[in-house]
């Protein structure tokens, strides 16, 4: 169980990024975090990962306080962040270097097979496409078998087809390993396709605004009425979350984004 109690973060430059976030996430749950720019989504995720420290409140995993990166918590970034001097297989095995070689190879081979990249084990990262590289990053995060997997807009740099494909991959991997997934996204449909709960945040400072349950049967049908219903609720909550504090640049953002992204 991941527990956040009154978590707040004020940066050294005075920016108040996060305030009073209280949240419980059970093992194996999938939680999506959505919200306008500057509402502290990434700050929250980085605090849970232990890469940054909250200035207020506390974060615990199974009762253990998180103050630095933890072996039970993995994170996948927006970019693959592969190490260019390691082959795909060595990148995937990066986090389990302490294990015996055979065990390592076995686990790497298994996860690579799961993400459909067994044939790429020996190539350099430079030879991968964007989607393949992100799949390797997912494999790398999964190989130590984390209890909690954090995903910071993991698919936002990819084209629509690759994105859908990767969502399926992540869901399949989740079904097998059953980690807790917490992911930040800009894509409301992505949130509903994947998550059990969707948390809408509001900016200035970043706070939890509304929580929407998406208890639809899996696999989720984007065309179904129930899906549409949840989508409307999330969009309405987002509008309200921004409406109170909506500034001009937020509205411009809205106009500039395509239809797939709601603003």
């Amino acid at each position, binding site marked *: 169980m991941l527990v956040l109690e009154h978590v707040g973060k004020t940066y050294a430059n005075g920016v108040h990024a996060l305030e009073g976030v209280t949240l419980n996430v059970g093992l194996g749950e999938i939680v999506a975090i959505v919200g306008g720019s500057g509402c502290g989504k990434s700050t929250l995720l980085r605090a849970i990962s232990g890469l940054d420290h909250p200035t207020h409140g506390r974060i615990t995993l199974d009762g253990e306080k998180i103050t630095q990166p933890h072996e039970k918590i993995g994170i996948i970034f927006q970019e693959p962040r592969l190490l260019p001097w390691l082959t795909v297989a060595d990148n995937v095995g990066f986090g389990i270097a302490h294990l015996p070689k055979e065990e390592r190879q076995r686990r790497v081979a298994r996860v690579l097979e799961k993400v459909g990249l067994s044939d790429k*084990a020996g190539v350099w990262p430079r030879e991968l496409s964007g989607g393949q590289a992100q799949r390797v990053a997912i494999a790398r995060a999964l190989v130590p078998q984390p209890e909690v997997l954090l995903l910071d807009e993991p698919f936002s740099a990819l084209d629509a087809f690759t994105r859908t494909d990767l969502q399926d991959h992540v869901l399949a991997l989740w079904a097998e390993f059953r980690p807790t997934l917490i992911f930040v996204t800009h894509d409301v449909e992505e949130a509903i396709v994947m998550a059990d709960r969707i948390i809408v945040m509001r900016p200035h400072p970043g706070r939890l605004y509304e929580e929407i349950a998406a208890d639809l049967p899996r696999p989720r049908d984007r065309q179904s009425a129930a899906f549409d219903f949840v989508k409307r609720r999330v969009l309405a909550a987002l509008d309200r979350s921004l409406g109170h504090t909506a500034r001009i640049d937020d509205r411009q953002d809205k106009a500039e984004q395509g239809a797939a992204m709601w603003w």
Partner: protein
Amino acid sequence: MSLAHMTIAAPDTAKATRAPIRRRVSRAWLGLVVPVTLAVIWEIAVRLGVSDGRLVPPPSVISNTLWELAQSGELWKHTLATVTRVAAGFGLGVVAGTLLGAIAGYSSLSRRLMDPTLQALRSIPSIAWVPLFILWFGIFEESKITLIAVGVFFPVYLGVMGAIMSVDRKIVEVGRVFRLSGPALVRRILLPAVLPSYIVALRSGLGLGWMFVVAAELLGASEGLGFLLIDGQQLGKPAQIVAAIVAFAIIGKTTDWIIATASAPFLRWEDRFSARGEER
């Protein structure tokens, strides 16, 4: 590397090495066209009596001189003296440059402490040190090696510091996520990340090392290729000067090639513009 990779990649690499070797050789020949043509033209000009070739000796005279120097053992003695000096100075300079560069790149406090001083020292033309070094270390090997080490130090120091400072924060974060300790972070993330720039720094350091050995030997030596130069000047033997210059060129190029070739296997992963088409 996994077993799967071996089986997949083996036929590939076999194919990949055969073709480019032929291409690389033909490219190397291409580089010889200009100097060889110039040499042949000059040789012909001297033979035809267009010039007496006294101050600018033709290739045949130079190669004769080289041959004689080699026969008498002179060439080897002088080359060995020079190479030993460069090796010692290069070794010292690389060790000092790498250590201080790594410290300055890693900790911003020590960078703020040391870097201004070192940058100020760097702006001194290194030859200006020679009188001082001779006073300090005498006229024999120590002062020469110190001068070479100073020349090698700065490019290595700057290269290492710059490389460490420009390592991508995002890549370092990957190391933090997997809870690498300080030494492990250095070994598994920082070192491989700075390796390409480090090799470049070593090569430019070596280039300066060769430059400074000449300066050191011109200023007073009883052996070494630089001594051959000054000896040729004082005794009016231009062919000996050019022979020494040719020897410098060959050794300098060879040592640079050794670094480049020895480092190549560690840099295969690089996504370089010039590597395109070489590998596949």
